[in-house]
């Protein structure tokens, strides 16, 4: 056990360490935390601080704290930390040493081997520096793998047929997209492109600016100089971003945010997902441009891609998923925690080197997309049956998503809500799984907002609720077995098709799969036992046994349970005597 190999994601902002236990890759936690900030510092007493503590002192002691060292890896430079000069690999080594210690603490023994991930664009010098960092930390870097390779392994380690995957990695401060080919656990990066200074932090910043300009308009106050208020706004912006991932509106409220002429200033502002998406649109456009450059680099087109993998916390933003769906025509995969995916892939690679088989990371996801129909354009024509997805395929269960809709004519008092399962843009080509009507809506001009929320749990229970935003009027229905029911329907459809092809035989088989009664099971057991005794009994007994078997088999075939009782008892008696 001592030569266990750990997997490390050595990131620009955060790092993680993972390993494979009982065939399952998992990230090792340190006091409940899975993520270690990639920050190193020195405290007043000259002790080394790594992770959160170092980050805590960054503003006070920037001269003795170093962050984002990954950006300097492979460069012939040194950084100053508390008056001492360090090479980038030495700083990285300190982070690796901490990760090694976290792993050792968890495993209860020393660890000396690791698989470390690096960006696909890393040069030889950068890779060499990373290897050296490992050596300084006392780790034998058995393999260095590209980050997109690691992500692809998490989703396709058991993949035998060749598959082309697009790995879209949007972290806090960096963006990378890679096209990879995976087959038999071997991943080849075909092309890669990215932006070193684009990430989720930019999204937050857009919301922060939006809030600050709202405060300016509302109170004529320049809030940017108020550190305390800005800290609250930053937190509120991040929270809003997360909430907008599954609901169409968010109310950003920070009461007593600050004071103006002795009076409290409150912040209360509603942000619609559509407005937020407009704020970040140019960033998303930039990432999609990069996607096309990467495709060109691999000399492929969108139709050549089999799967899209979402990596990095910022890919939780729904419009990224939607824009990729629009471009590629299928749902991207993001079910494995996008923050931890690379570390899990590193651990998967480590296990493969050790010859340990790794199961696919188990996550319960919905196999279908659920949504509703609304007025919209379908093949260039206006149609009332445009399918609007709400819960997307591959979403991790349980899940809850909302979408806002509007009434189409003045004084509209009722809306009929239909719920569909499927991915076709034309709702009528999908399976309708439920419908209900919301009545007594407010008599207002067209544009009355109705929020539709879909909530799907692990048992396939789909709760649908529609709520009139202005009045809070709500109607809820529950659809049982939303996942399984239609699988069964499909199964019986398939059976029908097969029996059409083969006639009676297939139909018989499907009957045989029906659950059997205890008595029939007992009869089958007795028959099996009788057959096993054939070689040991006399000719006479054998004849008797085969007669009984024949009788019982006939009765089972005719499903005549009542008539089974007597011959079964007789056979059991015979078996008893023959066996003793």
């Amino acid at each position: 056990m001592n030569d266990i190999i750990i997997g490390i994601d050595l990131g620009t902002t955060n790092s993680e360490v993972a390993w494979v236990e009982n065939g399952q890759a998992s990230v090792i936690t340190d006091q409940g935390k899975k993520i270690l900030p990639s920050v190193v510092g020195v405290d007043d007493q000259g002790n080394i601080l790594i992770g959160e503590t170092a980050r805590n002192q960054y503003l006070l002691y920037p001269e003795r704290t170093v962050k984002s060292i990954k950006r300097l890896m492979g460069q012939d430079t040194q950084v100053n930390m508390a008056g001492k000069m360090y090479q980038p690999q030495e700083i990285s080594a300190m982070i690796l040493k901490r990760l090694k210690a976290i792993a050792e603490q968890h495993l209860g023994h020393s660890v000396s081997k690791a698989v470390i991930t690096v960006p696909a664009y890393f040069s030889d010098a950068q890779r060499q520096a990373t290897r050296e960092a490992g050596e300084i930390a006392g780790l034998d870097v058995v393999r260095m793998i590209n980050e997109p390779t690691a992500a692809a392994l998490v989703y396709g380690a058991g993949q035998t047929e060749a598959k082309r995957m697009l790995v879209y990695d949007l972290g806090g401060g960096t963006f990378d997209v890679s096209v990879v080919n995976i087959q038999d656990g071997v991943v080849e990066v075909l092309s890669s492109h990215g932006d070193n200074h684009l990430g989720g932090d930019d999204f937050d910043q857009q919301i922060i600016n939006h809030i600050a300009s709202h405060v300016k308009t509302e109170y004529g106050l320049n809030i940017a100089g108020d550190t305390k208020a800005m800290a609250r706004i930053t937190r509120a912006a991040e929270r809003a971003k997360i909430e907008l991932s599954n609901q169409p509106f968010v109310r950003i409220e920070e009461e007593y945010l600050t004071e103006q002429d002795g009076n409290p200033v409150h912040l209360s502002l509603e942000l619609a997902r559509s407005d937020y998406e407009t704020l970040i649109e140019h960033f998303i456009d930039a990432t999609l441009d990069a996607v096309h450059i990467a495709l060109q680099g691999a000399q492929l087109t969108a139709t050549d891609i089999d799967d899209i993998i979402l990596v990095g916390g910022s890919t939780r933003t729904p419009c990224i998923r939607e824009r990729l769906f629009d471009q590629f025509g299928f749902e991207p995969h993001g079910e494995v925690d996008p923050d931890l995916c690379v570390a899990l892939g590193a651990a998967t690679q480590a296990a493969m080197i050790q010859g340990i088989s790794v199961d696919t990371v188990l996550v319960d996801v919905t196999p279908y997309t659920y949504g509703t129909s609304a007025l919209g354009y379908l093949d260039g024509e206006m149609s009332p049956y445009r399918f609007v997805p709400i819960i997307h395929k591959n979403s991790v269960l349980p899940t809850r998503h909302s979408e806002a809709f509007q009434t189409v004519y003045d004084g509209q008092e009722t809306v009929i809500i239909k719920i569909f399962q499927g991915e076709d843009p034309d709702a009528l080509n999908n399976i309708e799984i439920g419908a209900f009507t919301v009545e007594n809506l407010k008599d207002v001009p067209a544009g009355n907002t109705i929020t539709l929320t879909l909530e799907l749990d692990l048992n396939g229970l789909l709760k649908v609720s529609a709520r009139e935003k202005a009045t809070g009027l709500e109607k809820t229905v529950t659809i049982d077995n939303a996942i399984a029911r239609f699988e069964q329907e499909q199964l019986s459809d398939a059976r029908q098709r097969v029996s059409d092809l083969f006639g009676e035989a297939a139909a018989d088989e499907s009957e045989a799969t029906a659950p059997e009664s205890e008595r029939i099971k007992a009869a089958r057991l007795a028959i099996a036992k009788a057959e096993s005794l054939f070689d040991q009994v006399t000719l006479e007994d054998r004849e008797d046994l085969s007669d009984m078997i024949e009788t019982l088999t006939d009765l089972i075939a005719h499903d005549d349970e009542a008539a089974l009782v007597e011959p079964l008892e007789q056979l059991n008696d015979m078996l008893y005597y023959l066996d003793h």
Partner: protein
Amino acid sequence: MSNALSTDAVLDDFRHYLEATDFAHLTAQQPEDLTTLFTDLAGLKNEVKSQSRQFKATLDSLEQAVSTLTEDNQALRQALEDVKTQATRHAETIERSVLAEILDFYDRLDEAYQALSHYRPVNRLFRHSKPQDVTFIERLKQGQEITRRRFLEWLQKNHITPIDCLGQPFDANTMRTLAVGHDAKQDHGTVLAVMRSGFRHHDQVLRLAEVKVNKL
């Protein structure tokens, strides 16, 4: 061999005994044929042998069953332990996130109290605040103070204690620097202001304090 010999010897002894003994009273009515008797005895012996073989086989399979059960039991116990650990960890995570949200309400209560504390009645030559307004705001502040105190007491009862920061040297384990200030009268590294209180849950940091620190 010795076993076979001793069996013969026993059988000889038995034969002598049978010949020497008068069984007249037993066989008075129907004299027993010795050969039949021995055949029966041999049959009985075989029966005993096969029975003991069966017993042995049963014992073996029982032993095997016991060891399988013991193994299963151990595996189950281990699985149970793992699930328990996971459940505890999960519960702790949920507890921490719930407590963190509760602290958010405390923050707002505290902010409201601070805002009320900053209230100064207008006191100029021709303009004064209405005395009843001043009293109303004062009472509001008192009420807010009580609610805030009760909240803190509830937190403490649940082992959530505020981290003492103001005027203390900066500690990277419990505080995060959000801003730096310059105050020549204070030592370098002293916390000048608390921008958001930090809390401990038992001995673990539940939420870091966000502070403004003196930098000389």
